[in-house]
């Protein structure tokens, strides 16, 4: 029997409205369609099962993205070696045929060399246009940490991209 309260309705509406964003975040992170779909699915199920932990509906977005981000991290952890190897081969491949790629694709591949936390910050900040404060809340860190990580990530990206530009 499904009983939904007003909060539940709002959560469901939010999920339906933003499902494509969720997919993009997950996909940017794992670079694999099936894994990304799994992540989105798991995040939604977990969020709904734990919806009583959402005390204020205003925090819905932060709360949901936190679950999604954690799900991404968990997936990476599970398949760390496999994924790293896969993305590294992709990366090498992209070096060989680099004239086929635009700068954007280079960025996309260079990102795979970032450690998980840095990569997530880049995704949230530039792909999802989130504010630093928002990212800090989602990743449970303070704004200074987010800024530091962001600069660090950008520096690494710049270095990596200069290598083959």
């Amino acid at each position: 029997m499904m009983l939904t309260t007003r909060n539940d309705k709002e959560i469901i509406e939010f999920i339906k409205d933003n499902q494509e964003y969720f997919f993009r975040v997950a996909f940017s992170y794992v670079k694999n369609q099936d894994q990304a779909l799994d992540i989105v699915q798991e995040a939604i199920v977990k969020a709904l099962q734990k919806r009583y932990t959402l005390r204020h509906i205003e925090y819905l977005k932060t709360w949901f993205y936190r679950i999604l981000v954690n799900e991404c991290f968990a997936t990476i952890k599970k398949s760390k070696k496999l994924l790293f190897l896969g993305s590294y081969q992709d990366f090498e491949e992209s070096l060989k045929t680099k004239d086929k790629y635009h700068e954007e694709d280079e960025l996309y591949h260079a990102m795979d060399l970032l450690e998980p936390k840095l990569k997530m910050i880049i995704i949230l900040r530039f792909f999802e246009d989130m504010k630093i404060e928002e990212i800090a809340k989602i990743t449970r860190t303070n704004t200074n940490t987010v800024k530091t990580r962001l600069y660090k990530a950008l520096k690494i990206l710049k270095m990596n991209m200069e290598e083959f530009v």
Partner: protein
Amino acid sequence: MSYKKEKIAIPKQLDEVVNKAIYDGLSTPLKKNRGLKIFGGTVLTLFIVFVTFLNTIPVFAKTMYEIDIIGDICKIFTFREYHFEDDYEYIDVSIPHIDLNGNDDLENRVNLEISKLIDEEVEASKTRAKEYYDAFIATGGNPEDFYPIYVNINYEIKHISDKFASFVINKSETLASAYNIGYYYNIDLETGRILNLQDIFGSDYQKIIADDIDKQISKKNKDFQDSLLIDGSVIDYIDEFQEFYINDEGQIVIVFPKYEISVGALGTLEFVIEGE
């Protein structure tokens, strides 16, 4: 940074996956034991739905009665649930309330004991979490890399009839390795007392239970037998404090926590005692 997110193609399945996830998320009860969860605003709705269903569909009516969580003599429901989190820990608790119609004395005693037990367990975990956190920092760990300890306390109803109520308070704590502990409660609703094994099997209970379990063990495979730490018979392990519960069919199930009679790999062991 001109990355265009539109470049990531949205797979056709996404819609279906999301819809299914929403359905799964809403229809799986939060925990196994939370089949019936009633909150203020929904009581009336639930009641109306109940009445309508019960009156119109006989099959549904039957299964609802068989769940028996709302028994005539004993009701067990979620009294309070809360969530607590900080840098060290992430705690989910749901506290049951036992309503024994008419037996206020026992009711108060059981509920008081449960709430005391849960408070103590939460406190113990908090202390442990803080100790781990301090040790982590003291050894040069970065506070941001600390994984909070996850503590979950909930309950599971094993059996409710007009005669007995049996339930367990489960606690799991996830640190480096997970650890689980169960506190079992068995109430004889007719006499209004906490049941013990002697009440059920008589003064010879140790031998009766041990013989039954020994026989079950002898039928198991060699791997299983080799993993046991007992010396021939479990009889020395059965005493008045032995944990047990009553299952759906009204059978007695003896529970040995992890490590008690076997290597940790076997986890918690349960034996259904046939006969009674």
